[in-house]
Structure formats: C-alpha cells, structure tokens
C-alpha cells in the first residue's frame, strides 16, 4: 500500500506538486499520466525515496518514508525504483550487474541465478548477458535496466517510463505481459508513469492524471470516462480531461481560411 499525505513539492519557485493525497492499495497497478513536465517523475521519485517532499509525507505499507532509520531500510527492502534514466556500471556484464542488484536485496542465490537466466531469455539478452554493458545498444541497456527492476522480486515497483528508451516490439510485448501478470497478482503493487495510452489501457487498474501540480483524476478507465463525459478510448478521455480544447484546436488549425 502506498499513501501520500498532503504532499507538495517545488524545486525553486514554481510548485511541481501541490497538496497531493493519494492511496494506492496493495496489489494494484496504477499508471500516472500527464503532460510533459507536470511532475510525474517527481511524484515517482518522492514515492521511491529519491527525494523528500517539501511538505507532507509518504507511507509505504503503513511505514513512514524517512521516519526512522529502521523503517526506511524496511521500506527499501520492499521497493525497487526504475528511473527514466538509470546509470549502469559500464564495466560489468549484464549478468554480473543483475547479480549485484539481486544481492543488494538478499535474494537467494539459486533463485536469483535462475531468475536472471529466465529474464535474459525473456528480453532476448541471453547471448548478450555475459558481455560488458558498455557494448549494449540503448534498447538493450533499457532491457537490462528493466530486468534489474524485476530481479529483486520486491512487492512494490515504481517504474518511470519503462516503455521508452528504444525498446523493440518484442520487448514491449514481454514487458506488457509481465506487468499484466503483476496487475493480476494481489501481492504486487506497481506505480508506473507512461505516456503510451495503449499500454496503460491494457495493464493499469487505475489511472492517475496529473495537471498543474494537482491530481485531476484517479480512477479506473470507466471512472475516467464518466468523469470526463467521453466514452471514447483512453487518449480521447485523457485529452478531454487534460486539455478539452485540443480537438477543437486541431479542427481550427486545419480549417483556417485561405488567404
């Protein structure tokens, strides 16, 4: 369970998040959507513990984030965060790095090695797994980073734009399946930022829409349809919620009278 209580954040003058209250129940897969620069990564960073909010606090399974040393370490054991741009050790092989990440989370060695083998096969990295990461292409680096997030098997995953970064169609399909599988499980909670409505529509149980530092909607797709008064696909519902004038602006652009 992830809970944000009156969370506000700003880096300088402009508020990025303002009085955010959010509750993601255990076992749910929530997707965060919103226009560029609206604070999605900041929200995920705050949940993941990468930064402390300027106001408010975060609770993970009832434990307050950065409350005490012991609770913080307990929370860290239960959560893994995949940022949009992770930094990978270039000198290690993919398999070595995955082992290092698994060891950070004290995953049983046999289980870890077996899981790494299966992950490398799933993301078509079996041949590349024993090469240094510096020899990987951008898409392969993204794949190995995703494997790194999955390898600790933590009950909470926070994923920032996992579908971007040059993933090939088969990797997108694999990740989509993995996330769908997680969404069906009751013991894994996932919070994911994504700008790809087709993926969100398929895997997310609830969708959070951020705009102007506020949550303007947080509901199932049907709930969002009801809220927006639009019965179309997620992109249409999203546009209706975030920028109701978009469709009219498009029309007006193409129907401009000729000079």
């Amino acid at each position, binding site marked *: 369970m992830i809970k944000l209580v009156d969370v506000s954040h700003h880096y300088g003058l402009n508020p990025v998040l303002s009085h955010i209250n959010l509750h993601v129940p255990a076992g749910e897969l929530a997707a965060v959507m919103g226009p560029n620069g609206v604070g999605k990564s900041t929200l995920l960073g705050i949940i993941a513990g990468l930064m402390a909010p300027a106001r408010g606090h975060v609770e993970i399974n009832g434990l307050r984030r950065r409350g005490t040393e012991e609770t913080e370490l307990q929370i860290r054991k239960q959560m893994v965060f995949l940022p949009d741009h*992770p930094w990978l050790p270039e000198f290690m092989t993919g398999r070595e790095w995955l082992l290092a990440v698994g060891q*950070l*989370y004290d995953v049983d060695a046999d289980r870890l090695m077996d899981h790494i083998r299966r992950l490398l096969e799933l993301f078509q990295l079996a041949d590349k797994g024993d090469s240094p990461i510096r020899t990987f292409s951008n898409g392969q680096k993204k794949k190995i980073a995703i494997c790194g997030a999955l390898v600790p098997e933590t009950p909470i995953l926070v994923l920032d734009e996992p579908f971007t970064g040059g993933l090939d169609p088969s990797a997108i399909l694999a990740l989509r399946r993995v996330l769908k599988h997680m969404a069906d499980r009751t013991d894994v909670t996932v919070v994911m930022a994504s700008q790809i409505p087709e993926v969100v529509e398929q895997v997310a149980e609830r969708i959070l829409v951020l705009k102007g530092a506020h949550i303007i909607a947080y509901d199932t797709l049907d709930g969002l349809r009801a809220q927006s008064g639009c019965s179309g696909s997620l992109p249409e519902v999203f546009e209706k919620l975030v920028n109701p004038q978009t469709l009219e602006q498009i029309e007006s652009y193409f129907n401009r009278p000729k000079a």
Partner: protein
Amino acid sequence: MKRPLPFHSNAVWPPPWVMVTFVISCGLISAVIWLIAAVARMDPQTVFAMQEIVIVWKVLLGAAAGFYAVYRLGRFHPACNRGYREWLKLSPWTAAKPLPLGPAHLVWQDAAVVGALAAIAGYAHVNPLLPVGVFGLIYGGGMTFLLGLTGSGACLVLGFLWPALMLPAMSGWPMTAIIVVLLAVIWLGHQKSLKRFPWPNLGEKSVWQTDITIGGMPNAGWPYSRLSPKFSSSPVSIAASFLVSILIGWWFYCLNVYLQSPPEMIQFPPEVILVFGVAAALFRVLGYCMSITTPFNLWGRLVTGRLIVPGFDRVFLTPLAVVLLAIVGDVVIKHSETWCPVAESFVFALLWFVLLAGGPTYRKWILTGQHRYRTPPISNTNKRLFKSI
C-alpha cells in the same frame, strides 16, 4: 612430552639475498672510502667522518632497519597476510602453539640483527641508536596498528604511551621506563590478540574507524546503490568519541610541548585551532552532502518564506557548533598564557569530540534527512564507469 621447536625463532632471520645485498652494499661503500683515502692520501677514518659519507651510511642503515621491521611484521604477523590467516583458521593451530611461519613478537634474533646494524653504525661514525630507533619505531608503530586492527584494547594504551616519548621531561630513565612499558604492552597485547584468533571482524572494530564508510554495493549503479536496503555504516559511540578525542588532544599536547622545547622552539599560533575548526566543519558538510542536495533551492526558500528547513538544515548544526567552539577556543587560548599548550590541546580535543559525537550520524542523515539524491553527473560519479541509458 612435547617440546617447542628449538630453532623456531630462526625463521625470522632476514632472507639470504637481503643479507648478501646488504653486505655487498656495505663492502662497496667501505671500498670506495678506502679508495678515496688511498687516492687522496688521507686517513680512512677522516673520510669515514666526512658529512657526505655519514649521510650515505645513515640512509643505508636506516633503510636496512626499516626493511627488517616491515619484514618482521609483514612476513610473520597473521593480520598482515590474508592467505596465512585463512590457512591458520583451517589448521589445528592455537595461541598456545608457536606461529607456524615464525614468531611475530620480538626474539633474540631481532636483537642480534639490530645489534649488528648498531655495530656497523658505530664503525661508520653514525649514532648506533639510529638503526635501533628506526626498527623500534616501525616495528612498534606497526604492532600498535595491528593490535588496533585485530580489536585489541592494548592499542589504545599504546596510543597514549607513544606521544609521551616526545615530552622533554621524559629523557633519561623515564624514557627508558616508557620504552620498557611500551614493549611489555606490545608483547602482552600481541599474546592476548593471538588468543582471540580468528579475529571475527578484522579491521572493523578498531577505535579509529568511524562511520564514514558507505554501505551497499557502489557498483550497482544509480539509483540502486543510493536506495540500497543495505547500509553497513554504524555510528560512533559517545565512549569511542570521547576516547579518540582525549587521545588526539594528548598527541597534540605532546607535539606542542616537543616543538616548543629546544632546539625547535616552534609555537603553534592560536589561529591554528580556528583554521582547523573551520576546515573540519567544511569537511564534514562536504562529506555529508557529497551525493545529496537540499530538497529545494535557496530561491525557493526565499520565495516561500521557509528560510529554515529543519529536516535538512540539521546537517549544519554540528559544523556550526565546531566553528563557534573554535572561535571561543581561540579567545581562551590567547588569554591562557603559560597554560597555552594545555588550553590548545583541550580545545582541540573538544573540537574532535563535537565532530565525532555531534549529530546527526551519517547513517541517520542519509536514511532520514529531508534531502534529495543527486543524479550521478551532478554528484560527480566517475563518468568513465557509469553511463546513463
């Protein structure tokens, strides 16, 4: 009835190639001296006493004594040799038996080797105490370090005894007494240390190891190493901080008194404490904030009116206290007159105590502080080793 090996301590003799090299070196220098004397038609003893020649002998004898001390510890002390230590763990060896490779404590062969070096020093117009002193300092200092590494409390006693040798009042018999006590503490500490073998946390329990080490696996990349559920750093206890501060203060006092005495006659300016206080405060802030930054910038603080962010600004409390203490200490020292060395040492010790014991601990700060982790390019992570995707 079992008897100890009669020639066990013979293992400590320097390796033959070292002895041969040393003898050849001495022979060459002597030959050159005799040659110079013959060519210049001078008395060889006059050439031996020449300043340049004496320096050559000093370097050779000092290096030989130093090498022998390092060899004695590096070759025979299990704490210096991981392979030896691991092998000993698996063997039926106990502290009641002699160490298989040879003793690490002083034996008569050491006296013979150092005595021979002293005799050569006498022959070469060099103070015979030079090789004795070099060997004693390196062997004793090394043993003190190794006792600390193996978690022996004897290193703390030695830490207080060593600087006493610098005090002018300790010349003559008091000096001899201190050296005897030093040797006795080293011997007893070493025996006790061997009884505790295998040393469970070699290097982790010495009193000078503070909470600076960062746990986790730094090579797991960003942000895994930053958000790692493993954090091995442990805070320094108040007792450890107190002892370390007293020890540092005592060293400072002895050094101060030594430098103020003839022939050096150097006096620490009181500003030294102030400079140290400011530098230490800066160093602590840098250490604590190396990989992190404030949750929002100064402009954000000004605009929102939140000039103080308690969750972040607590990191500045101890450094501020250290700077204030250094300023007050500076004033006190300037008015202490004849008590100046004592006042300086006291203030110095107090500064260290505040630095070590002042909160928050590094662990508490990293895990509970209201801060933001920097991304690798900003936190100056080695860009050759890590790359963003």
